């Protein structure tokens, strides 16, 4: 079960951890992704705050937190090979977070 923001990020909750990624739509719109800017482990962000950026040949976009939390892991493979995101955006998470509040899921779209 994924929850989607209006800005095309998704969040998937698995117990005390949650993973955040980009929607298929966003990735298709961007085209071939050439670069991803991700935060460091330990960084904290509020819901709606920009935590990174994704860049393709024709566009660059900030990525926003669907819910607030602390970053506990970052998908290093994507930094080295951003094209992995084009291949399967739903399989590739951007970051894993903890210490979030499930109440913040309420205004997101369930899919």
């Amino acid at each position, binding site marked *: 079960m994924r929850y989607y923001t209006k800005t095309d990020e998704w969040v998937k909750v698995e117990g005390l951890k949650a993973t955040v990624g980009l929607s298929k739509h966003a990735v298709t719109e961007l085209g071939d992704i*050439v670069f991803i800017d991700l935060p460091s482990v330990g960084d904290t962000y509020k819901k709606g705050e920009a935590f990174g950026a994704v860049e393709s040949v024709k566009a660059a976009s900030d990525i926003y937190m669907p819910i607030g939390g602390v970053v506990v892991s970052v998908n290093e493979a994507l930094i080295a090979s951003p094209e992995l995101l084009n291949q399967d955006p739903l399989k590739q998470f951007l970051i894993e977070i903890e210490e979030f509040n499930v109440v913040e899921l309420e205004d997101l779209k369930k899919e």
Partner: protein
Amino acid sequence: MLYDKLIFELSSPSRVGHDLKHETNNLSKLPANLLRDNLDLPEVTEPDVVRHYTNVSMKNFGVDTGFYPLGSCTMKYNPKINDQMASLSGFSGLHPLTPNSASQGALQILHETDSMLAEITGMAKFSLAPFAGAQGELTGLMIIKQYHTVQGDLKRTKIIVPDSAHGTNPASASVAGYEVIEVKSNLDGTVNIESLKELMSDEVAGIMLTNPNTLGIFEKDILKIREIVHGQGGLLYYDGANLNALLGHAKPGHMGFDIVHLNVHKTFSTPHGGGGPGAGPVGVTKALIEYLPGPIVVKDNDAFVFYTPKHSIGRIGTFYGNFSVIVRTNSYIKTLGKNNLENVGNYAVLNANYIKESLKDDYLLPIETVCMHEVVFDGLKDKSTGVKTLDVAKRLLDYGVHPPTIYFPMLFHESLMVEPVETESKETLDHFISIMRQIALEARENPEIVKSAPHTTVVGRLDEVLAARQPRLKFKDN
């Protein structure tokens, strides 16, 4: 044959391209820890250098080569006399910190150009310092901010920009510290008045507009826009990128604009140089003269002197701007004079409408009304074979024509913006029209040849994804 050598690949140790001797070794008197050990620059002879850059130039296409209808860029003929005047030794050999008494000629050029541009645009005074259109925009926005600050009006934190605007407009507004709010456009790209009324408030510092707009359509409600913005204490800023259409028919100063920037490399024929140097002079109404970036040139009895305006936004470049480009501007305006400047708009707009009528059967025309100096198509009329604007542009290269601007303005998905400037003849336009029709035909009957174009250029389509994913940005990365 593709000339494919980099200057670094022509190098051979001990070759020289200069004849400077140094019999001394005085640099060794400096502390050793300040000096470098090694400098890896190519060692080539003078003939090597000349042959190399001559061959490199042949991989380029300029206005002098052929038709260059880049919308929004006004690629008109660059008169060679202007280059010659800029290299007169009295201009090119003059140090910028030469006292006024010995640089009256340079100051006269600046003052004359300022006055002539003021007359052409209906403004009161110009600063010639901004190095480019984008810097002119930034300067204009800084003037707006300074003005409101000095008036004590500190709650104006926003700038209105049409959603059809060129990317530099919102970027400049951001760099100037403003929040950008977009006003909706009508279907023809003109500002939606109702939408503007809703957005305008006493928190808005001003509005940035270009007229004609980025779709080549004249903002006929400009006087209403002036009323709405001025009515709540905001200022009107004019992006002069499209001024070519108005020469002889309208002056921005009479349309209510408080600040104007011009692109002399567009409207005033200075060469684009592959991307610069150009210049973006900024003109203002009388009320804003004291906010211009300093120093400006004024007359003191019979002499020209520098003057720093009382509330100046400050200096925006080490010296006075791209002086050599201003000399060219001065020379162009004098060559055309009143009689010919007043005809520029006529021929530019005639050309664009001729293209519009001639291509509307093959290319989708989203706006039917009379256009100004440029016309926007939304790709091919018949999109059934999947040929995109990008493909059409690449196929034009095979026919020896520089493509129009593509994918801008962003109001349409397959934008193709054609600006056939006033120095282009009917023959050139007819030739372009027949090529465009030919490509439309190919798109229907042989789409593959269009989709895989270009075929006859020195290089084919480039892998831009590779360039961005694995950046190799200097020779040692090669």
